[in-house]
């Protein structure tokens, strides 16, 4: 399979040759498999679909007994998500109803006798999530590519121990390191800062990323680089022009996994951030109204929060599959 690649080959790896051979197997069996897969995918998606539906429900539809499958959609949940509101007294409601200068959002919340008094923190938290998850993903991929390359190509004293050390970072339950990290962050002034969260997530992702990428780079034949070195490339040039393009698939897979982790992390975000650097996950599930749980608001937040990851995963899905293959099934 590797044989049809040259070291300049930046064209996609001709990976699976099975596609064009499907014809040899009975088409019907394949079609049945496809249909079954679609049905299972649908069943697995029911909770997510339900979440999407809840996002467009009104507060009372969301908690009706029995649960409603058909309902009048409303964007109330999304409005609640992005605004801060205040309960109006009956007299104020009457006043507001006569006003003509209300925009659609204000009219919507007026139906619940509320008025919008400002923006909620959600937009800011989304931005924090983007900054922190984005930067930490980029850093962990960069650091991991560099060290995975070094681990793969150079003889490093105590290599196995170092690698085990890196893997072991994932083994200690997070709960117990929160307190020491919190104390440390306090001392260093990293508490509730973007940079602090970026460092933290980068270090969490690194262990997985280094292992994944090292396995992948191991698979890239060293002849390619050697040939490039003979051609007069420096080691750095060879790394950049030969190894990196070959490693794109592994990098993509690592990116997806790192992003999923840093985007969704909850416990540390809760303990180590307050106002400035708070990300969205600690807030979404705990959005409280004055009384009941605001399911539609929670659902709206969850759906919005899910979309970016799904898009990235969809774009990188081919790489994802192959990245995992190369990374993990390398032999000895």
């Amino acid at each position, binding site marked *: *399979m*590797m044989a049809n690649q040259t070291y300049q080959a930046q064209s996609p790896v001709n*990976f699976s040759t*099975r*596609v064009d051979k499907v014809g040899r197997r009975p088409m019907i069996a*394949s*079609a049945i*498999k*496809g249909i079954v897969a679609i049905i*299972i*995918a649908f069943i*697995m998606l*029911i*909770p997510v679909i339900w979440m999407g539906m809840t996002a467009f429900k009104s507060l009372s539809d969301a908690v*009706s*007994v*029995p*649960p409603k499958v058909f309902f009048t959609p409303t964007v109330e949940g999304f409005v609640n998500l992005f605004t801060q509101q205040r309960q109006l007294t009956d007299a104020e409601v009457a006043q507001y109803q006569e006003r003509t200068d209300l925009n659609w959002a204000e009219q919507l919340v007026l139906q619940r006798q509320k008025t919008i008094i400002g923006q909620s923190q959600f937009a800011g938290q989304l931005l924090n999530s983007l900054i922190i998850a984005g930067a930490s993903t980029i850093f962990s991929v960069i*650091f991991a590519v*560099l*060290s995975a*390359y070094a681990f793969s190509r150079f*003889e490093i004293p105590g290599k196995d121990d*170092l690698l085990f050390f890196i893997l072991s970072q994932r*083994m*200690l*339950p*997070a*709960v*117990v*390191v*929160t*307190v*020491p*990290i919190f104390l440390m962050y306090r001392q260093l002034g990293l508490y509730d800062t973007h940079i602090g969260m970026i*460092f933290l997530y980068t*270090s969490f992702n690194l262990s997985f990323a*280094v292992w994944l990428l090292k396995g992948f780079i*191991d698979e890239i*034949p*060293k002849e390619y680089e*050697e040939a490039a070195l003979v051609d007069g490339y420096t*080691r750095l040039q060879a790394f950049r022009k030969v190894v990196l393009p070959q490693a794109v698939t592994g990098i993509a897979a690592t990116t997806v996994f790192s992003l999923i982790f840093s*985007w*969704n992390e*909850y*416990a540390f975000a809760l303990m180590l951030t307050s106002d400035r650097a708070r990300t969205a996950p*600690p807030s*979404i*599930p705990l959005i409280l109204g004055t009384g009941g749980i605001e399911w539609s608001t929670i659902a709206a937040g*969850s759906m919005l*929060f899910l979309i970016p990851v*799904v898009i990235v995963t969809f774009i990188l899905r081919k790489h*994802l*599959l*192959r990245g*995992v*293959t190369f990374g993990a*099934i390398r032999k*000895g």
Partner: protein
Amino acid sequence: MAQTSTDITSLQSSQATRQPRQRQMSDLRIMQLFILPTVILLILMNIFPLIYSLYLSFTNYSVIADKAPEWIGIQNYTTILSDQRFWANFATTGRYALISVILQTLIGFGLALLLRNKFKGSGLVTTLILVPMMLSPIVVATFWKLMFNPSLGIFNYLLGYTDINTSPLWLGDPNLALWAIVIVDVWMWSPFVMLLCLAGLSAIPEYLYEAAAIDRASAWFQFRRITLPQVMPLLLIAVLFRTIEAFKQFDLVMGLTSGGPGDVTETVSIRLYKLAFQGQYDTGMSSALAYIILIIIIAVSNLYIRSLNKARGA
């Protein structure tokens, strides 16, 4: 795959290492530059917490009390190991990990078999199946709690229970609560197993099947002799990761039952959380428990890695 070439090239590459070129960064420098950021970051972020909690595990200390840690040797460890409740916690965790990893493996592998052949839209279907693992665990727990609710949720209705007075009380019934957590865990993480299996499946050389077809081997034979052994390494890696995560699993259990009702779903991670926070702040004891969990995880990982190497060697 590239096994044979590796042996030759490793020789070449080590020669290259020994002959640094002029006028450019030596390989040694490059190696240092490449590795240092990772190692420094990991040491900064992890060594202190690790060593500090190891020290604290031998002390009587509460992080919020204004008292210095008092060295008590291995007392925390002996307390934990002689307390029945901790053993019950470990048993609960073990049951949960075992059941959910087995189910995830079966379902994930099954899905991968279904999706290995490309069909129109299979890329989209694969991505959609991966959606559960892209969600934040805390969001998953919150929503499943709503779904499991016999009054407000749809789960029981989907199963065909229409009378809420007799339908199962998933999170409140001591016989069902652990199963409810398993269901959510399997839902969320089977796609992960599927992803790894799919990767393994697509790497199986087609000629193996062609050869089997020529020999008129049965489908079962093909599965047992070709598919399974070829996927094994990746499957084991998936199982390893899921087992480690199951032992550490916190967000899901906390969000769904917080260990209840009573203590029937109190896993070691929940117990650890209750000890470390939840008004107890027994930092010393919780550090000791964390280290016990760590040792178990390392032991289990080693078992897996050993069988993984066996599978690879075969």
